[in-house]
């Protein structure tokens, strides 16, 4: 401000400053027909179908255990996925699954660009469904634009209200289906409407209803452009060989309206009909090249192929291609496509390796586990007769769906005797019976007594639990301390 202390009064008022905020431009995507539109319908049917049907699949596991095939059971602290049951201490399997999924996403992105965005992202799928509903009530692009411009009438009100009601129903079904994954589906579906469901169920059903309605009905492409981090991240995952929805300017330019008498001599194949722009749910022009907004749904390919067929040109003016190939062709060279690249191979290898680790881990899954926790206070107890006793907490996880009797024994500590509080052991017996309840964690208090004279400050013993029926046995080592010399 120091260089103009007193600006001279301008005779003309200065022009209005540019707006720093921009009103959303309403997009009216036109219905496309063709191969990719069909793929998108199929993917929508499969993903939405799976989302709504999966929680209803039953998978009997045994008495008293949830029989829902896919269930995140927070109350019971377990995660069920068909034949897999994940206990809290095995949560790393879920982490592994997420890592595999992440590398899967990296792999398809480095091969085919943003196919996740274009076909399977929930935002894309639900928006697609909402646009389908919109089209059913208000017609296709031109009719919708006309309706929005028209003054309010009964016809307009009925169409608009009908659309929003159906949107809200879909939104509620979306939020309602989500909670089915956290509770027994038939039970929660009933108690939800009788008012007995937990507050969290209502909260999340309500939240998902609202977000679905607003994000798929009102926000649409702005979610991808302004909110989603994935468009930014994917820039680091692709390279010049990743296939993207690309306008082949080497073939299309110079563009211009088609004149019957002129034909295609000395010009490009793009007739500038703007069909690719009209079908675009993001409201962009693919001919401007790769853009952050583009979700690569390939609907512009369908629209353009349709036109190319009609004007008697080969299809694929817009196609899955790379900028590098287009540039090479434009320069008269022969494009190279590389699917096998260091990064794609690496992603695939990592996916296979981590999946293999998970599968091996699950296959070797023991049917019970033993954990021994030594008392820290007091570290040992001097008995009246001079013997020393150490106390332990024995935690046993029984993953079998039936109760069973195991045998517990100790070894490695000469002259040691043991007892378990609340269970009787015949005097002098080397092992004793330990009943495990079905499918749960049992805690026992184990006391081990040994003549102190011969023992150093710290020695160790092994605690073995054996299932005599299956022969499965697990051993855990624990320290035994006395007042002896270090």
């Amino acid at each position, binding site marked *: 401000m120091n260089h103009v202390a007193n600006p001279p009064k301008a005779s003309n008022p200065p022009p209005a400053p*540019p*707006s720093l*905020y*921009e009103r959303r431009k309403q997009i009216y995507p036109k219905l496309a027909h063709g191969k990719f539109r069909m793929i998108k319908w199929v993917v929508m049917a499969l993903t939405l179908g799976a989302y709504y049907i999966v929680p209803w699949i039953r998978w009997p596991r045994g008495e008293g255990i949830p029989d829902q095939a896919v269930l995140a059971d927070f109350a019971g602290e377990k995660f069920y996925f068909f034949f897999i049951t994940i206990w809290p201490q095995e949560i790393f399997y879920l982490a592994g699954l997420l890592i595999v999924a992440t590398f899967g996403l990296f792999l398809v992105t480095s091969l085919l660009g943003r196919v996740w965005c274009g076909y399977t992202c929930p935002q894309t799928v639900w928006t697609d469904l909402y646009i389908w509903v919109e089209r059913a009530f208000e017609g296709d692009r031109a009719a919708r634009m006309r309706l929005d411009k028209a003054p309010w009438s009964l016809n307009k009100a009925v169409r608009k209200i009908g659309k929003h009601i159906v949107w809200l129903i879909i939104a509620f079904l979306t939020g309602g289906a989500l909670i089915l994954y956290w509770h027994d589906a038939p039970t929660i579906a009933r108690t939800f409407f009788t008012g007995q469901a937990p507050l969290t169920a209502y909260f999340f059903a309500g939240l998902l209803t609202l977000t679905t309605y607003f994000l798929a009905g009102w926000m649409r492409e702005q979610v991808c452009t*302004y909110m989603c981090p994935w468009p930014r991240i994917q820039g680091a995952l692709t390279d010049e060989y990743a296939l993207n929805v690309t306008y082949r300017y080497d073939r299309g330019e110079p563009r211009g309206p088609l004149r019957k008498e002129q034909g295609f001599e000395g010009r490009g194949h793009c007739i500038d009909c703007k069909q690719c722009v009209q079908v675009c749910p993001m409201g962009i022009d693919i001919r401007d090249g790769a853009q952050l907004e583009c979700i690569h749904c390939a609907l512009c390919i369908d629209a353009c192929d349709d036109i190319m067929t009609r004007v008697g040109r080969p299809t694929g003016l817009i196609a899955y291609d790379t900028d590098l190939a287009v540039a090479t062709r434009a320069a008269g060279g022969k494009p190279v496509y590389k699917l096998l690249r260091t990064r794609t191979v690496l992603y695939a290898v990592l996916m296979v390796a981590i999946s293999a680790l998970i599968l091996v881990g699950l296959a070797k899954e023991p049917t019970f586990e033993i954990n021994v926790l030594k008392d820290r*206070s*007091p570290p040992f107890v001097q008995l009246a007769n001079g013997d020393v006793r150490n106390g332990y907490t024995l935690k046993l996880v029984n993953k079998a769906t039936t109760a069973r009797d195991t045998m517990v024994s100790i070894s490695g500590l000469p002259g040691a005797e043991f007892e378990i509080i609340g269970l009787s052991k015949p005097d002098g017996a080397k092992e004793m019976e330990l009943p495990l309840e079905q499918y749960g964690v049992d805690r026992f208090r184990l006391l081990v007594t040994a003549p102190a004279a011969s023992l150093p400050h710290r020695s160790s013993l092994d605690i073995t639990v054996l299932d005599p029926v299956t022969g499965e046995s697990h051993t855990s080592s624990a320290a035994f301390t006395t007042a002896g010399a270090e």
Partner: protein
Amino acid sequence: MSDQHTEIDAHSGVETTGHTWDGIQELNNPLPRWWLIVWYISIAWALVYMVLMPAIPALPGLGSTNTPGLLGQSDRSLVAEKVAAMNAERGVASQRLMAASLTEIQNDLNLQQFAMEMGESAFGDNCATCHGAGGRGAKGYPMLADDIWLWSGTLDGIEQTIRHGIRHEGDDATRFSAMPAFGRDKLLTSSEIDDLVQHVLSFSGRDTDAAAAAEGSTIFAAQCATCHGANAKGDRSVGAPDLTDAEWIFGGEPSDIEATISNARNAHMPAWQGRLDDPTIKALAVYVHSLGGGE
């Protein structure tokens, strides 16, 4: 810099805001308008929140507290509600605890686990201050995990000790005995006490002055054997400790023993009946019993 002269930037094709500084121009990539609206809504929401919820601290006239908010939300009352809910939930399991005898609790593994968990937390809150974590004991406070007991180590005996305490005034059923303060009350002379100390040390096979110990043995028979027994094995009915083992609650050095004989110890433990509810006392008995020394 404020002449608002906007132009289209040649490089990016984006309109400028007209702000320039040292030749650097600012591009105008407009924010979506709903973003601005969301910001305004957030501000409005913050105002609503401030009225509804506890918010502004230390206003004049409020002292050190804050505006309470119209909804009367308070974390203190939330905690109280949760404690009440937990007590109600625990009440159901506590009823099972009350219906079962102590032995039944210990032999029913489910009930035992419940009592152990409950007892462990109650022990940490109420008992560990003196008896130490896990009942490890301290000078003047008996270890609870060994097999040496002053009064009783059975489930019922432990429960009685917890319920009524030891030498607890105002509880008629409290465990009671009183060792005379032989020195302070001049029942024995100083040299008699020295002889007695030597004799007491001899019970647990310690090195002693044999002549003094012989003198002390007469005094022991006359003054101490009534409670501690002729063989010094103690008497649990009066809480008299066994003097022949290596365990000394108040220390086993000659000076410690002399102090004990001179002044008597007569330690106290409060009665917990009325301070803890019945299920908690029962759970504590099971827990202490299971520490290792239970009989």
